[in-house]
Structure formats: C-alpha cells, structure tokens
C-alpha cells in the first residue's frame, strides 16, 4: 500500500483543463467573428499589441468586453443552478424557478418604465433579486420547519407573483419602451457593461465553494445523514443559499434574465462527469461560461446586423441537447 496520505482519488484535473481549453477557444471565436471577421494573423497582431486602430478598437472596446461579460454571466448562472439543486436536493431547482430572476425583472422593468438610465436599471434589478431572495427565504422558514419542498414551493409561487407584476408593467408601458424591456426579459448582453465585477464574484464564489464540495456531497444525502457525518447543516445551507442568490443577482444585473443555463449546464455535466460537487461546481462555472459565450456569438451573427437576445439562443441550443442526453442516459 502506498503512503497513508497518498491521494486515492486524485482531483480530476483533466476534465477541468479540457473545459478551460474549450473556454479559451470559445472566447477566441467570440472575438474573431462578427460584422468584420478577423483572421488568425489579425488576432495575433492585436493580442501582441499591433494591428490597426479599427481592429484594436473592435476587439478591446467591443467584442472582448462582451465576450468576457457573457462568459462570467454564464458561469455565474450555472454555478447558482448547481448550488440550488444540491441545496434543495431537487433537479428542478434553479435560481429562475425560485423567483430570483422574477424579482430582478420587476426591479429592472420598473426602473425602465420610469425612464431610468442603465446604472439605475442594474441597481434596481440587483435590489429586486435580493428582495426576492429574502422574501422566499423568510417565508419558507416561516414558523414551521425549513424543508426543501417548502422552499421550492414558496419560490415557485413567488415567481408566479412576479410574473404577474411583469405582465402588468409591460401592459402599462408606452410602446417605445417595450422592445428594450422585452430584450431585457429574454436576456441580452449588448448593454452589458464592464465585466470586472461579474468575474470577481465568479472567481470568489467558486473558490469559496470548493472546500465545501465534499460537505455538499454529504448534504445531498439528506440533512440528518449529513449532520450524523459531521456537517453543520444549517450554517452550510444558509451560506449556500445566500451565495447562490448573490451570484444570481450579479448575473441578472449583467445580462437580464437568461434562462436555462442554470438548469441545463449542471445536469449535462452530471450526466457526463458524475455527482462529485468538488468537480461539478467549477466545471459548471466553466461550461456555463462557454455555453453563454457561444450563444452570444451566435446571437450577434445569426441574423446580422439584427441582434438576437441571447436567452433565445441558450434555450434553442440547450433544450434539444439536454433532452437528447437525458434520453440516452441510464
């Protein structure tokens, strides 16, 4: 037998490196294609400080920030989805199902209706998402016990409430504001600002969750079993919920409500990579980023010069792929 401390199960770096490589390729593709396509030599020139002014402008001011924003948003959404699914031990859990995006949407649309600028719309969306989190968490705790089913039901009902308010806001809005609102609702990265914050939150969130991965594996077997195996269940659940909510709020603030990423990406990865959260959480962040970067690239070029909302693409891509893999799985 090897030394006592030799790792019997090496950390599965291979899968992560493959995803990192795919991520770099997706980003490269995202900055290369568009109304003015750039070849490999052009890209190399710009990345090494050369290229003409138009090319530099195109990459550093337009495409790269947008691709980075797309990657971060996708990563955040997929991470939040993966966390919520473990927390609720329910494969249907997703920040959107739990009403977080609904709260953000009401905040954003309300601000748009009042004619507020981009900064205020983002701030209002963020506040809406956090308000929804507190509402769902507080109501689900209530006077009784805190169970996954109760949290999920509370979230679904709160989401339905938000969706009614959204319909109301859309009905009350003047016609000229409607397209912007609809784009926001379907998810849109064309107004995404500097992605620095989103990246920071993504990196911090993944780093914070990695050491909790094995505890989450145990938590997936039920709170009693987890407590019997030494997991401090309540603090773990609370911190995961708060983190997932924060992560969702940042994502929604960056790109509006992009659906399906949080639901589909973790499941796809579980079908392929198994259920170890130590791998699934960082892999979700990477794969979600890749999916949204590619989807946004398609959204830019598919009907150019017309741009599609990225949420439409994620749904159109994600749904058939997911159904196919689910159909083929055991």
């Amino acid at each position, binding site marked *: *037998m*090897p*030394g*006592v*401390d*030799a*790792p*019997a*199960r*090496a*950390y599965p770096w291979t899968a992560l490196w493959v995803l990192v490589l795919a991520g770099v390729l997706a980003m490269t593709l995202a900055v290369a294609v568009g109304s003015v396509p750039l070849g490999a030599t052009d890209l190399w020139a710009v990345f090494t400080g050369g290229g003409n002014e138009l090319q530099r402008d195109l990459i550093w001011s337009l495409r790269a920030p947008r691709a980075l924003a797309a990657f971060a948003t996708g990563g955040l959404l997929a991470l939040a989805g993966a966390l919520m699914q*473990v927390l609720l*031990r329910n*494969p249907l859990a997703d920040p959107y199902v739990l009403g977080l995006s609904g709260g953000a949407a009401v905040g954003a649309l309300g601000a748009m209706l009042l004619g507020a600028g981009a900064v205020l719309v983002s701030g209002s969306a963020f506040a809406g998402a956090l308000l929804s989190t507190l509402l769902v968490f507080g109501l689900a705790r209530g006077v009784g016990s805190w169970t996954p089913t109760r949290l999920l039901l509370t979230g679904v009902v709160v989401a339905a409430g938000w969706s009614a308010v959204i319909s109301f806001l859309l009905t009350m809005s003047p016609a000229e504001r409607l397209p912007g609102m609809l784009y926001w609702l379907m998810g849109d990265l064309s107004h995404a600002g500097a992605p620095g914050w989103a990246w920071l939150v993504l990196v911090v969130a993944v780093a914070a969750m*990695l*050491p*909790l991965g*094995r*505890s989450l*594996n*145990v*938590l*997936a*077997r*039920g709170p*009693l*079993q987890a*407590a*019997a*195996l*030494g*997991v*401090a269940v309540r603090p773990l659940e609370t911190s995961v919920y708060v983190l997932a909510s924060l992560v969702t709020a940042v994502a929604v603030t960056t790109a509006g409500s992009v659906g399906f990423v949080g639901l589909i990406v973790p499941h796809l990865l*579980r079908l392929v990579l198994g*259920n*170890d959260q*130590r791998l699934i959480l960082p892999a979700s962040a990477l794969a979600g980023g890749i999916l949204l970067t590619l989807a946004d690239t398609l959204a830019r070029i598919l009907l150019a010069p017309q741009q599609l909302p990225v949420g439409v693409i994620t749904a159109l891509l994600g749904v058939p792929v997911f159904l196919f893999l689910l159909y083929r799985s*055991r």
Partner: protein
Amino acid sequence: MSVLETRELIIDVPGRVSGRALSLRIEPGQRWGILGPNGAGKTTLLHTLAGLRAPRSGQVLLDGKPLSQWRRRQVAQRLAVVFQERQDGFPATVLETALIGRHPFLPPWRMETAADLERARDALRQLDLSHLEPRLVSTLSGGERQRLALATALAQQPALWLADEPTNHLDLHHQVAVMRLLERQSQQGAGLCLCLHDLNLAARWCDRVLLLYPDGELCHGPADAMLIPEALEKLYRQRLMVTEINGTRLFLPE
C-alpha cells in the same frame, strides 16, 4: 473509546405530556437494545442520543461533555448513526456511498486518501457488498441498501454505534452476519445502542435492554432481568409464549 451518557433526559415526542426521565450510560463494549411498540419513541430517542434532535429536558453527554458543546465533526469522529430511512439525492455508486463515512476525518481541501479508500472497501467486504462497488445505489434492493448503510457507518470506525433497526430488510443469513459484525465491534470496545423489533435478536445479542412504553414510562437493566414475559407482554400488549433453546430464551406471539 467513548462513553455516551444521559442525565434526566426526557425526549420530545410530539403530543406526549409526561415521561420518565432517563439516566443511563452506554459504556465501551456494552450492547444495548431498545425495545418498544410502534410510536414509543425509539427513533426519537436514538436521534436525541445522536444530538440530531433537542431533548425536552435533560442532557446527553459524550465523554462527560454535553453533546451541544461538541462540534458536529468531532461527534461524527466518535459516533455513527444508522438511519431507518434514507434519501437518495443524486445518483451515487456503492463505493462512493461507503466513502462518505470518511468525511468527518478529512480536512476540507483533502481528497480521500488510499487509506480511506481501503477502509471503505474493507467495510463493503465485511458486509458482503464488494461485488456491487460500481453499482448505483438506486439499483440496489432494500436489504443491500441496509447493508450499505451499515458499511458507511463501519467505514466511520465509530466508538459508538446508534443503529435504528440494523436488521431491517435483511434475510436470515445477513441478519446473523450483521449481528455478528456488531458483536465483534463491541468486543473491540465499541458501545452499541440498537433499536430492535425482534425480541429474539435482543435476547441473543444484547446484554442490556431499555424498554420504552408508549406513555413515556421506561425501565432498563441487564437483558436477563428485562426480557421476562410479564414485562414484555405489558410492553407490546400481546400474550407471549416462551421457550429455551441452547440456553437462549425465545419469544413467540401466542
């Protein structure tokens, strides 16, 4: 080795107004059986002993320190619980499930070591599950899952076992195999506390017995003194026939 002790403990059974306070010590090597009819509070007591449920009053002490002052992780390094009901969260293999028994011993950043893997494999071997290692838990039979739960606890190498009907769903051969395994654990110094439905298992394998009555009354003592027809008939409200084979008392419902 660890000692689990209760002081004036009254468990919190919903709707029960009174109850006799329980003071007992589970010492290394002792094999306690908890007997009682449905709804008497066997599972509630077991969860309270494990610190998973707050008592109505009184204290549970692990090695002289109240359970509430221990960190869960430290408790889990000494005490294993085998539950009657289990949740399948996400799909997991048999080996992965046995490996989670090592969780309390691993620091957050550490992957399972070769020694951990060997402990989990050994636990599966002892419960006759080696051939199922790569199988998904959801494809196992009820008895196989029960043995897997015991294997997970065994991988935890506990000084105290709290097991809720450890022979549930098991065929006769595996019932005996599991009770032998638990007996070996106690001979190596572990304290056992088992909720049992089968009087004959208690008579054969337990050296101390706690009788729990539905109204909160209780009594405990050496198995020989407790397992007498008068007490058991009152406990289960069922007439019993008693016989003796090879020095072991056997109980049959009349």
